[in-house]
């Protein structure tokens, strides 16, 4: 109830703020209809509720013609491009998917003043700029994985003494990936309890591998997009996954887990430490949904052997299609949905903002809530180390070639060297075939 009152107040403030500051005057887009294809889900609805304010202020109306998750939207966008039916106007976008649609979306630079763009975290505007074109504006849905852990494991006296006796150091949440692995193996008691878990398939597996490679001082691709992950850093990273699997520190089915299974796993109370996204923080500490509630600690993600923290990140945004009949009106809607006032409303629901000023508002709003404050501080610290996926339209295709080879090494079908060589060869062939080099 309290939350909805706050949201209503914020919503009204947003409306007033927009009317006061927007260059668009009431009635500017009278009779204009903007067709939109947006990401669907409960966590996104708070922002969509504000659309009526924009409609009221501009006289335009928004017709949401599709509401799906990003993987389904991705398939729909590709079909639209193939069929030439891209005359809808506003689409949800994501930093990991955006490079795949080089011709679908228009350059937003001319529709936004530099001052307006300066309010975003610079790295995100950089990631939204593909081939010199600003193809999306980020909304308050920023993702970087931080470390979740069960506090009781670290407070347990017998755990503390056993760990100290075995490794000669005090038991504390891990700072490095090596410590992470060591502790996960230490905590594991299969099949009742596992030290950790990881995304084992699709872009999730390749993404985790990617951030480990970077943290260990390597890179996925060279500047010309030839594969670079078949390196010492690559071997060190893949060996990390293999060691955890071989030691039984992760559930044996982890190679078939993705975000939902991982979230459910930590919430079941059977996972000790877990790299996961900010969106899960509320769920993990909800007594009705999670057995780990009241026992959840959150801290910055660990760093690799190169002293670099993991930080594979992504964020949601909105784009305007090239074929939109009224790009100006569509851009106005996108500007509104990603404005400071809108981000304040959206991040009040627990998601992370992509505007610098909104971070401070979120931290202030969490005052008095110990858990939320801890979470926000961890996310804020984690965001400092964030890096986006390599900017190639073939990223998703590359991940589809890489992750089965990672799985093959994890499950023992191939050695680490064989798997990396095969993955590197496959990506190299794909890049050449696509004329990248």
């Amino acid at each position, binding site marked *: 109830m309290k939350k909805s009152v706050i949201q209503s107040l914020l919503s009204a403030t947003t409306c007033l703020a927009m009317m006061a500051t927007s260059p668009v005057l009431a009635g500017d887009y009278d009779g204009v209809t903007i067709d939109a294809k947006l990401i669907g889900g409960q966590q996104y609805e708070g922002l969509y509720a504000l659309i009526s304010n924009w409609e009221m202020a501009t006289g335009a109306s928004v017709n949401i013609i599709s509401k799906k998750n990003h993987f389904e939207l*991705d*398939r729909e966008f*590709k*079909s639209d*491009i*193939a069929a*030439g039916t891209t005359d809808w106007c506003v689409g949800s976008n994501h930093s990991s998917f955006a490079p*795949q*649609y*080089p*011709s*679908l979306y228009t350059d937003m630079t001319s529709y936004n003043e530099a001052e307006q763009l300066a309010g975003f975290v610079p790295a995100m505007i950089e990631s939204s700029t593909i081939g010199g074109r600003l193809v999306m504006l980020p909304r308050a849905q920023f993702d970087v994985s931080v470390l979740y852990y069960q506090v009781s494991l670290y407070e347990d006296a017998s755990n503390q003494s056993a760990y100290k006796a075995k490794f000669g150091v005090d038991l504390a949440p891990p700072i490095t990936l090596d410590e992470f692995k060591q502790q996960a193996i230490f905590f594991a008691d*299969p*099949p009742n309890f*596992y030290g950790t878990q990881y995304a*084992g*398939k*699709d872009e999730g597996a390749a993404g985790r591998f990617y951030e480990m490679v970077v943290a260990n001082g390597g890179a996925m691709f060279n500047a010309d997009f030839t594969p670079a992950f078949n390196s010492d850093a690559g071997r060190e990273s893949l060996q990390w996954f293999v060691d955890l699997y071989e030691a039984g520190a992760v*559930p*044996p*089915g982890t*190679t*078939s887990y993705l975000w939902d*299974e991982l979230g*459910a*796993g930590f919430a*079941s109370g*059977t996972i000790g430490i877990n790299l996961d996204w900010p969106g899960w923080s509320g769920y993990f500490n909800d007594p009705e949904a999670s057995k780990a509630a009241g026992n959840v600690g959150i801290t910055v993600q660990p760093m690799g052997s190169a002293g670099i923290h993991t930080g594979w990140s992504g964020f949601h945004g909105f784009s305007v299609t090239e074929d939109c009949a009224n790009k100006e009106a569509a851009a106005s809607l996108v500007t509104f949905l990603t404005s400071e006032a809108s981000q304040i409303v959206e991040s009040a629901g627990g998601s992370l903002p992509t505007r610098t000023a909104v971070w401070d508002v979120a931290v202030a709003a969490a005052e008095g809530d110990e858990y939320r404050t801890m979470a926000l501080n961890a996310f804020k610290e984690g965001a400092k180390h964030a890096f986006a996926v390599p900017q190639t*339209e073939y990223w*998703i*295709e590359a991940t*589809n070639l890489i992750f*089965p*080879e990672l*799985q*093959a090494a*994890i*499950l023992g*079908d191939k050695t680490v060297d064989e798997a990396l060589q095969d993955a590197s060869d496959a990506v190299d062939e794909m890049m050449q075939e696509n004329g990248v080099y």
Partner: protein
Amino acid sequence: MPSLILIFEKSNMSLKKIPPWLLLILPAIIILAAVILIPLMFSLYSSFTSYRLTRPDTLFNWIGTFNYEKAVKSSVFWAAFGRTILFLTVALNLEMFLGLGLALLVSRVTRGQRLLRTVMMFPMMFSPVLVGFQFKFIFNDNVGLVNNALQSLGLSNRAIPWLVDEKLAMFSIIFAEVWMSTSVFAILILAGLFSIPQDPQEAAKVDGCSPWQSFRHITLPFIMPFIFIAMAIRSLDVARAYDIVQVMTNGGPARRTEILWTLIGRTGYVDAKMGYANAMGYVSIFLAIFFTVYFFRKLNAARAELGMAG
């Protein structure tokens, strides 16, 4: 206006020239061409191009047989091809034997047979996606029903990786497929059992045949046409199996359960390489054609044996 009349007259004349039989089947030909022939020709054409969904201009980039050569040289494709045949063979035979057993049992039931037949059809009514999710949960290694039951009963003290282990993952998928579709065989074979004339059966009893001899030499030849019809229908279904595999494992892990359709689906819609996906599709269509021809030959042979050929 005069030109319009001319066109009408001309078209009227040309219509008159079309033989009546062709005129009558023309609507069917047009509909078939629109919904089958044109898409088929389009996909066949695109398999000779570098067509990517996200770059429509590539549809006109003719690359000859490159996609076919790539598919034929790809070990991933042939592994998926082999797995699809294995999947097809094991699932079809299991469904056939279980369906035959089920039909024989149900045919013996004297009371409540109609209810049993209805119950038997329940699994067929579920969508394959739903069945996939159901068995994905049942076989989950950590929170799944099977592992929890085995551990609670003291039959296992470890989390069995049903959807990860090379053999178990394929077993789990086949189990789900068999659970859903065995009743197709059972219903068709049951129909066959009901159509068997009683005279030969009774004659066999009088002649002192054992139950096995009656089944082997009288019942089985009579129901063979029904079995082959079921085989032909199901072989096409199973050869196109996608939903259950996609939901349960999506072809993984490490391509251990990759079948043709998960590979083709990912290549076409996720990687957006529709030209290559279509080429793989055309190569694998021969799989479906082969099984169809094989079972129809068997069906005709069985019909000939019963004097039903022609």
